[in-house]
């Protein structure tokens, strides 16, 4: 418990935490509401979306879909960066040696970091929901739409959002531990999340086995889960796998990333 408190205190007071969360919220509002609102009110190009689709995307009852659709790619990349920085920076600052000589077992110290990161990620998803809901209500009020609260599907969408966020967190943690630094971890992570999987999807249109593989890669699984719970209409969201299959792959990635990172942390010398 002491390790979680310690990690939470330092992550809470870390400007990078709030800068990244802030950037994500601004991106989420801009792409989820601002651009759609402008397109609805005099935009010349509505990206092949009908007015009805734009209105539906901004309805408060669809806020869960708005949250989950952003996470497979851009939101995920930001979460990955946060996790990679949180873990990797400790090697450069020398704080891992301070942490690992403080008293708790290495596994407890690692659990503390993961626990605190989990809390920060839950806060990020919750803030995304709250801010998006506020934006949706504002748009609905401005436009004079009748609106209603989200149904129980919201819980499914939030659970999916948390699972996707957990996977990207795990990926960032894994990269931070493997590379023992923030720069390479962030670089590799961003390249994977934004570039590599998209390139593979391009190659997949030529090679069948690669196409099958892309569906179950970390970003692909996240995109498929988002698609399965109604989050379609954003980059990275797919509709190739069932929600259950995608969720199982994501759970597998979370277990693998966090398990491998913890094992490395526990066994490797800190020199």
């Amino acid at each position, binding site marked *: 418990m002491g390790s979680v408190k310690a990690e939470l205190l*330092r992550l809470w007071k870390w400007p990078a935490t709030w800068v990244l969360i802030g950037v994500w919220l601004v991106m989420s509002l801009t792409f989820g509401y601002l651009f759609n609102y402008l397109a609805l009110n005099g935009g010349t190009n509505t990206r092949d979306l009908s007015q009805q689709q734009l209105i539906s995307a901004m309805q408060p009852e669809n806020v869960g879909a708005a949250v989950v659709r952003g996470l497979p790619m851009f939101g995920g990349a930001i979460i990955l960066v946060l996790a990679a920085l949180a873990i990797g920076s400790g090697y450069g600052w020398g704080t891992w040696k301070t942490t690992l000589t403080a*008293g708790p077992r290495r596994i407890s110290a690692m659990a503390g970091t993961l626990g605190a990161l989990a809390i920060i990620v839950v806060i990020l998803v919750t803030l995304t929901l709250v801010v998006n809901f506020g934006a949706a209500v504002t748009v609905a009020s401005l436009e004079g739409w009748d609106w209603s609260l989200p149904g129980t599907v919201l819980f499914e969408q939030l659970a999916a959002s948390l699972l996707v966020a957990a996977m990207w967190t795990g990926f960032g943690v894994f990269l931070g531990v493997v590379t023992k630094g923030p720069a390479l971890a962030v670089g590799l992570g961003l390249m994977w999340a934004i570039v590599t999987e998209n390139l593979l999807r391009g190659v997949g249109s030529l090679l069948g086995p690669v196409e099958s593989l892309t569906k179950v890669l970390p970003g692909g699984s996240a995109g498929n889960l988002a698609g399965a719970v109604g989050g379609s209409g954003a980059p990275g969201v797919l509709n190739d796998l069932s929600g259950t299959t995608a969720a199982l792959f994501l759970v597998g990635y979370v277990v693998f990333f966090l398990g491998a990172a913890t094992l490395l942390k526990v066994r490797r*010398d800190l020199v």
Partner: protein
Amino acid sequence: MIVTTEKLTKRYGDRAVVDEVSLSVRRGEVYGFLGPNGAGKTTTIRMLLGLVKPTSGTARVLGEAPGTPKALLKVGSLIEGPGFYPYLSGRDNLRVHAHRRGVGKTHVEAALEQVDLVGAANEKFRRYSLGMKQRLGVAAALLGQPELLILDEPTNGLDPAGMADMRDLVRALAAQGQTVLLSSHLLGEVEEICDRVGVISNGKLVAESTVEQLRGDTVLLIKADPIEKAHVLIEGSSLHGDVLHVRETDAGALVRTLVHADVDVQEVRPLRRTLEEVFFEMTGVA
């Protein structure tokens, strides 16, 4: 014994960074771990803290295996410079550390007071001078009143005033009965502060004793005329040019002997090897 190691060894490939080191640190003493840069001091200390696993050999810290919570909670350490979050204040950094060590706020304030950092406790760590950073490192090491303090090169990078401050701090802790394992390559520092010394060179412990024992017996230098007569009169003396060296502590008796034999005594003074000379001799560093 607070710390014991038995043939502690760490190899990276074929290279033994620490080679069968057997040392012991007693309760209440300031133990100087002396060696040139790259001799294996930090690796040994990292093994004592469980950060690095030994290739072979054993170590016990306060009767426990190194790196276990039971051992770590009784040890405070500062290894190769302080590792803190640059964006947090000194106080917040200590609060983070205190959570990990399971101690409360009062310990944080006491530690800040002990290293004289209360006035700067709310400043960001990245704005601290090197000396303040080192002192914060010592404050973190003191959290939870550890039985053993391990300080690895605590004066590294400090200006002379900072070094003097750090030495005073270690001396004050030692005066309170704190056991300290102080690693350093600064001989003056070790000579001034430490009760016992372990000298490590190329991964091997080449000596372990008190500073006095390490320097060896005091030699008397005698300048007299005629020097050859004095050489014959003083048994066990050795002639070095126009002076004699003799392992003898009763200088008065020696002078009386020479004066009664009509030898003109011009100079008598103790000739002590410095720790530096002993160190260079042992480590082959010049």
